[in-house]
């Protein structure tokens, strides 16, 4: 791992006693998800694309791990592979030490787009998982109501998804995934389409849920603040092909609050992420070259805005 030479002892690596102890405790827990040398190639009409190369990491029980990386680095491919929606070309994905084969209710997933079933009411959406897994109607309904209560949407149990706001829909999607009591919750930019205010509420809400139930979370985002605010550890990917660049232990202590956005640990971590994702010496990526606009002046020479 290359380190910036003119910054000695980067402070994102310094952890307070409490934080260090917490990571120590996490390391004692059992491994829920293990990814070993995972590789994924797509063969498309334009030829082969290597989306993921040699990805390895472990996630332990009740850990909250975020994945960030530049656009197109394979974040979605990674999470879809873990969910079993995409097959992998090489390596292994182990859930509780058993290889993953196809999608299953032991791995819940929340998508960025609204993936609720539009023909079912909110309650029926949440009941869907239990019913598919052979639980009876009454039991499924009780579970659904409990989880709707947990995400604060009891009042909307009989509404249809199109009657809800974006934030509420994602809360239903979270409840729908959690009611199955999966071992891990996979989230692919779940708040990406929400406005800033709703998004920050949802982040706090998600942390509350996570604290109260036995769930491990793998969360994809391209928002650095979101990643630092939520995560125990952040997996930073680089693009073309998608490879692990660094797995950062976030030194910001828990419990988290929005007040910490300006704390020293937070800023140090953010600086490090910026450095990794937007390198200081801008080596132009292929994409930048392709989309670089050519500026032509359309206004009068004297008509300046600056």
């Amino acid at each position, binding site marked *: 791992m290359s380190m910036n030479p003119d910054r000695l002892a980067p402070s994102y690596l310094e952890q307070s006693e409490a934080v260090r102890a917490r990571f120590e405790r996490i390391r004692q827990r059992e491994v829920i998800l293990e990814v070993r040398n995972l590789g994924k190639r797509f063969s498309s009409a334009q030829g082969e694309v290597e989306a993921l190369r040699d990805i390895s990491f472990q996630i332990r029980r009740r850990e909250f791990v975020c994945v960030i990386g530049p656009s197109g680095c394979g974040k979605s491919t990674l999470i879809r592979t873990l969910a079993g929606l995409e097959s992998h070309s090489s390596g292994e994905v182990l859930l509780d030490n058993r290889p993953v084969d196809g999608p299953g209710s032991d791995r819940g997933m929340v998508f960025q787009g609204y*993936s609720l079933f*539009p023909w*079912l009411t909110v309650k029926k959406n949440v009941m*869907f998982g239990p019913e*598919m897994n052979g639980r009876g109607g009454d039991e499924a309904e009780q579970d659904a109501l409990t989880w709707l209560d947990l995400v604060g949407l009891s009042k909307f149990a009989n509404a249809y*998804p199109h009657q809800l706001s974006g934030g509420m829909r994602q809360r239903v999607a979270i409840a729908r995934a959690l009611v*199955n009591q999966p071992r891990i919750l996979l989230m692919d930019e779940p708040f990406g389409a929400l406005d800033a205010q709703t998004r920050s509420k949802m982040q706090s809400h998600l942390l509350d849920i996570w604290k109260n139930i036995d769930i491990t979370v793998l969360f994809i985002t391209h928002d650095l603040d979101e990643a630092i605010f939520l995560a125990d550890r952040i997996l930073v990917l680089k693009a073309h092909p998608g490879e692990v660049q660094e797995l950062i232990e976030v030194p910001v202590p828990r419990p988290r609050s929005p007040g910490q956005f300006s704390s020293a640990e937070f800023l140090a971590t953010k600086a490090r992420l910026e450095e990794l994702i937007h390198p200081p010496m801008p080596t132009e990526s292929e994409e930048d070259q392709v989309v670089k606009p050519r500026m032509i002046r359309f206004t009068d020479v004297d008509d300046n805005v600056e």
Partner: protein
Amino acid sequence: MGTIAKWFAARARLGAQQRTILGLGSFLLPLLVWCMVSYVPFVWHPKVVVESPGGVDYFQVGMLVDKAVFKDEVANMRAANLLLPQGKPANPIYLPAPHEVARAFYTAFTAKPEQKDLPWLHQSLWHSIQVIFWGFVISSVFGVPLGILSGTYAALGRLNEPFVEFFRYLPAPAFGALAVAILGIYDGPKIAIIVIGTFFQQVLIIANTTRKLDATILEAAMTLGTRGLKLLTRVVVPAILPDLYRDQRILLGWAWTYLIVAELIGTSTGITWFITQQARYQHFDNVYAAIMIIGIIGFGSDLLLGRLGRRLFPWDRSQDHG
């Protein structure tokens, strides 16, 4: 912005009142044109109806003659110093005025048909509706499931769609003679023509609708533990139901267009038989009434089905203002 400018703003939404006014207008405009042509003597009116023959020996009261012929005869009579014929502008027999068609509408249901062998209009209609109904039901029983399966399972789709695609270019009426040979001369071949005309389009359209289903919905269901046939019955089918319903409405409209051809096959029956008989006796007012009633039944049933659809699928947003 002026009212007119507002109405012509691209893709602007119309208010309820505007929609009603414009919707009525869409019917009133053609009616207005028809009234103009029928009641304003100097608009079109290429014929003259003879009111008194004067000195023209072959003219009779009520006879329709070309304007030019009438003019010639007037000139002839004047030259021969005979009594001038009298007449007023008229339209050809095949264009009755709105009030005549309206009257025909009424009498078709109230007065016994003049000719003994002619069925009542409602009897003809009922027969036609039965033919359509069975044609559409038989086509749907096979076409809908096949379409859904083809759209869900790529292999199944590939196995039938190229052939279906080819077959749909074969005009259904071309199978008329064959259908008669196989199914006899009564309703069998008529229903068969409607089935042939509907089925192949149906498979392709419904397969396409099924394929347009958002993959995320399916993937979400899979991550919730749905697999196998349940994916089809609990996810694909309910998800596409509103679109499927819309497709069926459109296909039903097409089935109506095959009706007239279908009814000419074997022994002519139903509304087509009614229309051809009335035309033979030159009762064009009845012909128009019958044609219009097809339109009214088709359009009316579609409106009803549209209403029903909004009831059945309250979650379907694309039916708002549909």
